[in-house]
């Protein structure tokens, strides 16, 4: 059963050094505020899982929080490279980063298998490509009826999954709406789940009988953090700050510039700072 608490408490109680952590949100609803709190609490030796590391993992990696990254596409969408990720992989700065690399299809299926409590996922993939040569976790399984060989990857079962959602009701039921990505699967696949939401409401106002809702008994902690997805977005609340994604290319290119930005905008601020991002974005 979930509990409402501050973001500080939610991260302190559920994210530990050395944990395998999945912060999901496919472009939409990326849990930036929660990621920043993990940085402020100086978690170390994390295994970070995310289909698209995006800027939030670029920041965690650049701050030395991660020993290992499990991912399928590591770029700045529509802009270019994730410079902190590249610096860690190419130059080991600030520390070496081990990679476990997959395709989107593999990771989506691996989360799905995790939510279904299966040890592995089966899919049609990796035909003729080189990734299986460098990732021993990509294997094959044979169909017991046709003899066909299919790709197999281990299910993803994070110690903790962190997501951002539009809202939660008083009972702690959480609604996601719009591009829902793999968040439901990532939460159900995890031992613990932390959720940040734009607001707490009396009535979820679910859009339809088949709305994407995580019951209160499927998560561990909920923190209300308006604007908590900025510079990603929350459908119905504020738009994606595409300008920030473009600006990040310059901020992150230089180590010192990056560290200064993190000091001024993450280490020196709390989650309440996101409130203004949310507001500003709404007005935009």
């Amino acid at each position, binding site marked *: 059963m979930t509990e409402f608490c501050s973001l500080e408490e939610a991260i302190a109680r559920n994210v530990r050094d050395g944990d395998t952590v999945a912060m999901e949100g496919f472009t939409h609803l990326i849990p930036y505020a929660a990621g920043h709190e993990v940085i402020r609490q100086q978690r170390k030796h994390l295994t970070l899982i995310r*289909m698209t590391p995006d800027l939030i993992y670029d920041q965690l990696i650049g701050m030395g929080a991660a020993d290992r990254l499990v991912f399928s596409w590591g770029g700045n969408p529509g802009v270019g490279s994730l410079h902190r990720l*590249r610096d860690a992989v190419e130059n080991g700065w600030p520390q070496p980063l081990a990679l476990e690399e997959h395709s*989107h299809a593999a990771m*989506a299926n691996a989360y799905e298998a995790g939510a279904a409590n299966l040890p592995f996922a089966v899919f049609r*993939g990796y035909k*003729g*490509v*080189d990734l299986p040569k460098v990732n021993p976790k990509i294997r094959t399984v044979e169909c017991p009826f046709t003899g066909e060989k299919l790709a197999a990857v281990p299910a993803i079962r994070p110690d903790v999954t962190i997501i951002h959602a539009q809202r939660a009701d008083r009972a702690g039921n959480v609604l996601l709406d719009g591009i829902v990505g793999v968040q*439901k699967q990532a939460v159900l696949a995890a031992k613990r789940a932390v959720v940040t939401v734009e607001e707490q409401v009396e009535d979820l106002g679910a859009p339809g009988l088949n709305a*994407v809702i995580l019951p209160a008994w499927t998560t561990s902690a909920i923190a209300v953090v308006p604007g908590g997805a900025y510079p990603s977005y929350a459908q119905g609340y504020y738009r994606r700050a595409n300008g920030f994604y473009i600006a990040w290319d310059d901020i992150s290119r230089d180590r010192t510039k990056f560290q200064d930005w993190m000091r001024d905008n993450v280490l020196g601020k709390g989650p309440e700072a996101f409130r203004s991002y949310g507001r500003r974005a709404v007005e935009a």
Partner: protein
Amino acid sequence: MTGTFTPNEMMTIVAARALKNSDVCFVGIGAPSAACNLARLTHAPDITLIYESGTIGTRPTVLPLSIGDGELCATALTTVSVPEMFRYWLQGGRITVGFLSGAQIDRYGNLNTTVVGPYEKPKVRLPGGGGAPEIASSCGETFITIAMSPRAFVERLGFITSFGHGRGRGDREALGLKTKGPTRIMTDLCVLEPEPDTKEFVVVSLHPDVTQEAVRAACGWPLRFSPQVKETPPPTPEELRVLRELQARTKKAHSADA
């Protein structure tokens, strides 16, 4: 009169022309997104555009910066989860055309978007495959859009991120693939198609004012030309107008999102 146009505009317009009204497209960001929406706004109003973020039948008024912009979801017929997108729709064989691009390509349409140099100690760490490996194997056919340069069009790939025609004809069938693979490479200088009996990509159409020499110079392998190379019809005023209006709307919208 057509007026002047950039090589990039020509590439996008050629890609748009290749799409049919009945196509179901798996769209990537950048040139593919521009091409697919240009097609939708010109000759293919009913084309179905799908982005891997889960949006099905989207009709954005501006081009997304990411494959998951809110505009894509708000204008879609419906939006499904990412596992469903990859399981039921891509792997399900529901996509007729998938768009791919990459940092490097070889003469058989294999692509590298993973690393330059050794995987464990790369010279350049590229973003990786994302949806590409399974787009390349599950879509009915794939179109590749990529600007030509000797650094991009290479003699040999150090890493195969997504599979084209392997080392030539029959390689896809040998892997049990029933899809066509890359049927067209659309560049800023020309259009290439696979030669039927070798599956090596050869130039079938040169864009206006582009010489065979210029194209050869931009390719890292001894490039061959089809017996009858055509000239790509230049952009029509209508194509240029719609594309430029789309780009202008997009620029305006994104600069507002600072």
